[in-house]
């Protein structure tokens, strides 16, 4: 490590976040991202990494995608954040663009947050207003953000620290893929909404069993609860359609998109709301106020993101990347059958499962040493989040697979001892 980086890390510990800065050093990942371009990150010491983390799809279209940079630049010639109180050209234009591609025809309104957490809070508040009920059901190990309401839907690791966990019995968590538990939670008809990531990301992408999500939606209808689809990580073409919930036949009442919608260039998050659920927007349109939410520059970038991800070429690319990566990973899995034991996949959303309770951490480290940046699942460290971008080239995918094969082998040897050679 360079002297410059050592000194920088000291400053990072001193002025930014001592715990987080140190944790990465302890995990053997001494990354300080400097330059970034396409699917590449460059450490401040110059080392190149292929980015398979993409911050949950924030960089779907690559880092500093030139078209998005241009949209932001050109947008800044005319717009700034805008005045959040007034009807605004860009906010309405993005709302229309979202309505035109919404997963349900009745989704006419868009409310804006400045980030995913705020958008989740808006969604939960909207559901509470629409149903006049307070309870929210989410999945055990769910992750929807760190704001006031969102943090209560998730793992208590993030709420208890701040004495912000639910104490009123309003936030109920049920195991994923367990319909009986879901029905038990809803049976009392006192639940405002079920909030569901179409594929729980931070939990390592456990995949919904066939029929699970539509059954949850039917239970919501039966017990007068709303279905909120959290498409922050699964949306924007990552599963081969613009919103993954439609692949499972779901027409949600409320949907949240974030991260990738801002193209990694301008943070913005959006809540799509059906006419039926949007009562507060008429009763008191000032009910939720956000100075940064729906900033018009963000809207300009988001419209370009929506246009880009809906190009027919992107659909083909996603399919090719999914199929090609899967074929290559299947081969690697066959090389290390005692360690690399499973692949969870929907489109370019993938979780690689290892036969060790912390297995994804050494894989992450060895991939890092081999020029690939992919992160373990915080809430299930057996699983490595493996998330190629929508526009990856064949050469880049081939390069990733070459490095993954090496990294997985090294991690296996580290955890399980020198490999018995076969063949």
């Amino acid at each position, binding site marked *: 490590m360079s002297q410059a980086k050592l000194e920088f890390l000291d400053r990072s510990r001193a002025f930014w976040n001592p715990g987080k800065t140190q944790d990465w050093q302890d995990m053997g990942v001494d990354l300080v991202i400097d330059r970034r371009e396409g699917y590449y990150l460059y450490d401040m010491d110059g080392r190149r990494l292929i980015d398979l983390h993409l911050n949950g799809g924030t960089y779907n279209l690559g880092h500093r*995608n*030139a*078209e998005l*940079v*241009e*949209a932001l630049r*050109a*947008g800044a*010639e*005319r*717009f700034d954040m805008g005045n959040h109180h007034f009807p605004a*050209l*860009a906010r309405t234009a993005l*709302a*229309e*663009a979202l309505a*035109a591609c919404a997963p349900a025809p009745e989704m*006419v309104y868009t409310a804006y947050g400045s980030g995913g957490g705020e958008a989740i809070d808006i969604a939960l508040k909207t559901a509470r207003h629409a149903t006049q009920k307070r309870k929210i059901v989410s999945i055990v190990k769910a992750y929807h953000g760190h704001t006031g309401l969102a943090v209560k839907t998730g793992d208590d690791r993030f709420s208890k620290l701040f004495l912000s966990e639910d104490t009123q019995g309003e936030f109920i968590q049920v195991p994923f893929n367990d319909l009986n538990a879901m029905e038990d939670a809803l049976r009392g008809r006192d639940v405002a909404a079920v909030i569901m990531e179409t594929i729980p990301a931070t939990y390592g992408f456990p*995949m*919904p*069993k*066939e*029929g699970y999500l539509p059954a949850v939606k039917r239970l919501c209808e039966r017990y007068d609860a709303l279905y909120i689809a959290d498409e922050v990580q699964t949306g924007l073409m990552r*599963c081969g359609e613009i919103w993954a919930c439609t*692949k*499972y036949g779901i027409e949600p009442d409320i949907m949240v998109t974030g991260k990738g919608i801002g193209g990694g260039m301008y943070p913005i998050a959006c809540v799509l709301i059906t006419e039926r659920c949007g009562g507060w927007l008429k009763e008191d349109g000032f009910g939720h106020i956000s100075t940064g939410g729906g900033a018009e520059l963000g809207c*300009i970038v988001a*419209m*370009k993101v929506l246009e*880009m991800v809906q*190009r027919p*070429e*992107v659909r*083909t*690319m996603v*399919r*090719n990347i*999914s*199929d*090609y*990566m*899967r*074929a290559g990973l*299947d081969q690697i*899995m*066959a*090389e290390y*059958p005692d360690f*690399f*034991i*499973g*692949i*969870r*996949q*929907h*489109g370019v959303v993938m979780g690689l499962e290892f036969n060790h309770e912390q297995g994804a951490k050494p894989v992450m480290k060895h991939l890092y040493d081999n020029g690939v940046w992919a992160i373990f699942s915080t809430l299930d460290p057996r699983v490595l989040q493996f998330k190629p971008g929508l*526009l990856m*080239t*064949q050469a880049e995918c081939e390069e990733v697979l070459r490095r993954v094969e090496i990294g997985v082998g090294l991690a296996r040897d580290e955890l399980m001892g020198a490999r018995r050679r076969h*063949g």
Partner: protein
Amino acid sequence: MEPQVRTLVDISGSPAALKGRADLVLERARWAAEIFQRYDRDLTMAIVDAVAAAAHGNAGRYAEWAVKETGFGVVEHKRHKNEMTAFPLVDFYRDEDFVNPRIDEARKMVEIPRPAGVIMALTPSTNPIATINYKILISLMTRNAIVISPHPAARECSVDAARALAQAAVEAGAPDGVIQIIEDPTIPLVEQFMGSPKTSLILATGGTAMVRSAYSSSSPAIGVGPGNAPVFVDSSADLSKAAKRIVESKSFDNSALCTNESVLITLAETDARLRQCFKQARAHVCDDDDVARLRRYLFHDRGFNIECIGRDAVWIAQECGIRVPDGTLILLAPVGQIGVEEPLSREKLCPVLAYHTVNSRRQAIAQARAVLRLAGAGHSAAVHTGDEQVAMQFAAAVEAYRVVVNAPCTQGAAGFQTALAPTFTIGTGFFGRSSVGENIGPQHLIQWTRLAYNSDASEPFGHYHGLSSGFSGPLPEAPADGVPGSNGYRTPSPSPRPSQDTLPGVTRDELRRMIAEELRAVLGK
């Protein structure tokens, strides 16, 4: 109220947007090309045949559309060209194998075909559909992906035609994106495509500026220059047949093909008889006044009048105020000079044939060389003669890479009434500042990796016959876990893959079958 998708900040003309769009199309093509290389010859040819059938089936419809959109040419002739670039083109190459390795025992070499990757194909307005058919089929034969940039004047019919062939290809099993077309081919956008490192080879057919631009793009290119074919009618020729063939050639699609005869050269001794033969073949022989009118009309102050391209002889005569009988097929324009002084000795792409008389065969050759020096070097020429010595001297002297003998040049040089390779891209070679001098065919879209053994007799050559070439076909579809009808969660095989070392004597097919059975057992299916 219905939502409208509007553009508040339009960046579509910015370099970033143009490059972004080009990159996306080309990257989709690169993926398709990469997957296509997994295909074996049977599947490749099944796709080629399906696309040829679609091209054949659409021949008439797009012939009409092209004439309506561009104003160039004759529907019936375009239909013929569109058909010729379907089944006959494929049949011409049917027995050639551009997919499997070639084994050369004598030289101890194995040659493995390697597709170029992504072909960037520029297509002209004069032969839009035939060129599209042809470029797509030779790309598919060689397992290349192709991106077509149509001439803007023929954009609509080209886009529709290419889409139809793309659909036929994908339905026959080709990778998605193997055939794409640029729907709004503006010059800055096309330049982005041509200059991109994702383009493997540019196949440029069209005007000089476009071809030079292709060569300047820094991508490998096969560009072909314009034609301006001289035709020499020797005294030894059957004059009546020669006139009929030349009229047939010039009136075919109203000379919209660049292989059409541009300047006829004949000997003084045959002049009168040849003119008579032309009249009988429904050519109008212009007088001095007619020629002056033609010259003014075809080459006005601003240069060549593109209005005349592919128009019929009667229409052109009317535009110029020349009286001709109904049914006149071509206009014969006697000119006293060849060269810069006489614009009619340039390429005309319409059924107007400059007609020049010389005193000797030697002078005929000198004038033919002068025609090609003016324009059309490396392209085509024709000779009508009964004397092979004349044909030989003419062909050896003119700077053209194809000299058609006793046949219509339009069709003959393009390989449709001769044994030349059928093509819509005429290599103009070194004379025409191009890289290839042949009629362009599939062989130009691949290169070969050569395994070359030690030539020493003590080092034996390997047994390559029957060796698997590693064709694995289309990529298997990845599961979308939990989606009804998807393959579902796939569990790994519990044991390591057996290799040939551990199971001697087992063929790969048997291995595949064993692994499949093992998987089925694990999955309980």
